[in-house]
């Protein structure tokens, strides 16, 4: 995002802006791949003010040497919005969104294998009168299906330039730029009026699009043979759910297995850095701050970057391959039992990576009460920020035994934690829908796109954006709170020779001492109570805080060994149960506030999750004690 002094003069003189072109098209037209291919890695990802719809802009160098801005608008079926993100698309194109520039030209992206349906939107856009070029995308897939297109006829019937493109092979990109260049200076022609009977209007466009598609398509398509063959297996009534469970299980096993080597390497680097600093710096507050506060605190979180990236990579591959909506299709019936639709499944799966994009992804849900329910249960999906916590506790308390083949006990426990979160979410949804979110069942309609090989460039670009966001968090929220905690946990010092525990004597120790009364009934000790204070800002901070707390406790063992000896098994298990439910994420509450326009729902979310976490941890603790663990 531009800083204020930079943004202000530009906002005052619109002429200073480079021209803006917008990518518009149906979902699954390959818009984002085309955007990535056109703009490369020089993208700015942010949000539209007031809504959490992702705003992606980049630069494109035209053949005439001009640099222009490109904006990738959310996929839409028409200018008649059915959800908040489609509303953004319409508002930007029509210039209705204050603070956002209206694009001077449109690049309409259409999927060549689904011409009739996508051309309808092109015809609707064309009536707006903006200069426009059509990118006939995925022509390679259409050719593989046995489809050919008469481009001359298509150009003629549409009255628009048409460029065949294959975003992933960079085919047609130069031509697109060459056609776009002269369009950008052109004044828009007046918009044509639409028929006030919206259904009749839509039907007319539909008929016209179908007629054009018939006229320009040569050859009978094999109708995506590969996709149908795959679907016969993956959507099979018996095999489908098994395959879905296997995919999710593989995902969680891989997160542990594939990330182990880089995570170990990072841990060793941070340890070495800590030792080097401790040996180099004179002992004192500065050395303590850097080693105990920064290295132990931030290091404890950053070492989980590989796991988080592996998880994100899985989710991106599932999304881009087209499998994610199949999962929604399989799950719709079960989701309907708790009053939701399969559509809610996608935000919930994304929430496994992070509840923030998950909650943002609910903007595709039309029915407001469905959407609100999905937002409220999204934090129960085990997000990647819980992984550092789970990983540490599992490593400390669950033996690394092999159960069968590559399946280990630790992986199974992790999977069980994920399942508990899911079960909690479904239960919460059911209760919400039966009480405060009553409403009639909504429409469920979702396009199942054809399967595609995920494009490595798109995946890597997204991963890079995630990694950067994570490290920025580590450098700001996490660094800030660990330094603050270090200070609170280091001062005041007990009088020399008093023999008092420095941690217990510090401010943090006293806060923890008060909170201990609240948490003692569920088996938490003072150190845990203490770590939960900064842990309220973000879940993974608790690991950093435990690292700081126990490092300051004067013990030089690794954190895992330290926890193993300091906590009982019931406490370890109760801590895991706590984390399945606890609402410890400022970002989630903030995005919920923004999405629901007020503090009411985030406050409700916090309260119900806190209560659930307390009960779950208590039940686990006393259950484990009772079982003699």
């Amino acid at each position: 995002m531009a800083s204020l002094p930079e943004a202000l003069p530009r906002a005052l003189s619109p002429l200073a802006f480079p021209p803006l072109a917008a990518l518009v098209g149906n979902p699954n037209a390959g818009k984002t791949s085309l955007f990535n291919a056109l703009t490369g890695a020089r993208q700015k990802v942010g949000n539209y003010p007031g809504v959490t719809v992702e705003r992606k802009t980049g630069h494109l160098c035209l053949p005439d040497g001009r640099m222009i801005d490109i904006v990738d608008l959310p996929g839409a079926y028409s200018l008649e919005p059915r959800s908040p993100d489609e509303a953004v698309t319409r508002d930007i194109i029509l210039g209705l969104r204050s603070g956002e520039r209206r694009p001077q030209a449109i690049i309409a992206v259409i999927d060549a294998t689904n011409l009739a349906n996508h051309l309808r939107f092109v015809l609707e856009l064309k009536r707006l009168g903006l200069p426009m070029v059509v990118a006939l995308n995925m022509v390679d897939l259409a050719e593989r299906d046995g489809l050919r297109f008469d481009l001359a006829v298509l150009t003629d019937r549409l009255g628009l330039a048409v460029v065949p493109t294959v975003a992933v092979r960079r085919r047609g990109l130069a031509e697109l730029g060459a056609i776009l260049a002269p369009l950008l200076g052109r004044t828009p022609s007046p918009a044509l009026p639409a028929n006030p009977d919206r259904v009749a209007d839509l039907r007319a466009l539909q008929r016209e699009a179908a007629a054009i598609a018939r006229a320009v398509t040569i050859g009978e398509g094999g109708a995506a043979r590969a996709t149908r063959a795959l679907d016969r297996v993956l959507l099979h009534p018996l095999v489908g759910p098994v395959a879905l469970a296997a995919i999710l299980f593989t995902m969680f096993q891989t997160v542990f297995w594939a990330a182990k080597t880089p995570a170990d390497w990072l841990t060793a680097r941070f340890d070495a850095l800590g030792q080097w600093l401790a040996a180099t710096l004179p002992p004192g507050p500065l050395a303590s701050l850097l080693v105990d506060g920064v290295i132990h605190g931030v290091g404890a979180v950053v070492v989980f970057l590989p796991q988080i990236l592996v998880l994100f990579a899985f989710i991106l591959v599932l999304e881009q391959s087209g499998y994610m909506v199949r999962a929604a299709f399989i799950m719709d019936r079960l989701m309907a039992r708790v009053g939701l639709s399969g559509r809610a499944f996608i935000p919930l799966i994304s929430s496994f990576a992070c509840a923030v994009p998950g909650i943002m992804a609910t903007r595709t849900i039309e029915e407001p009460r469905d959407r609100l329910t999905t937002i409220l249960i999204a934090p129960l999906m085990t997000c990647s920020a819980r992984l550092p916590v789970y990983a540490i506790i599992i490593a400390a308390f669950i033996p690394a035994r092999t159960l069968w083949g590559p399946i280990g006990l630790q992986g199974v426990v992790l999977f069980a934690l994920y399942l508990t979160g899911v079960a909690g979410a479904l239960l919460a949804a059911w209760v919400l829908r039966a009480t405060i979110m009553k409403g009639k069942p909504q429409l469920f309609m979702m396009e199942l796109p054809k399967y595609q090989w995920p494009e490595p460039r798109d995946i890597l670009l997204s991963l890079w954006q995630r990694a950067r966001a994570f490290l920025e968090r580590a450098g700001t929220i996490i660094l800030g709170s660990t330094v603050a905690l270090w200070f609170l946990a280091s001062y005041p010092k007990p009088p020399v020779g008093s023999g008092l525990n420095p941690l217990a004597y510090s401010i943090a120790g006293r806060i923890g001492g008060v909170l201990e009364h609240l948490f003692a009934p569920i088996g938490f000790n003072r150190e845990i109570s203490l770590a939960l204070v900064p842990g309220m800002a973000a879940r993974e901070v608790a690991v950093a805080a435990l690292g700081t707390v126990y490092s300051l406790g004067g013990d030089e063992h690794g954190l895992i060994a330290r926890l193993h000896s300091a906590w009982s098994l019931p406490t370890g298990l109760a801590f895991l149960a706590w984390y399945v439910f606890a609402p410890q994420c400022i970002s989630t509450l903030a995005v919920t506030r923004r999405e629901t326009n007020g503090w009411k729902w985030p406050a409700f979310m916090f309260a119900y999750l806190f209560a659930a976490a307390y009960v779950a941890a208590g039940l686990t603790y006393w259950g484990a004690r009772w079982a003699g663990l």
Partner: protein
Amino acid sequence: MRLAALAPRTPAIIAAIGCCGDERCAMRMREMGFDEGVEVQVLHRAPFGGDPIAVRVGGSTVAIRRAQAELIELTA
């Protein structure tokens, strides 16, 4: 016959979309490619009770619930 009752992998033609004056419902269906005279085919039924169904309509495959498929009338 209605789309909800159509046997899998049997092509049929849409005769009418009966959204009973619900403009939003009619527009959603049409935006997904449903239209009078268009060929449809049920490709898959979801696990756990065969609802929703995956329908091939024009160049797209669309998942819809049976309750909505009841609104789509097919030619005999």
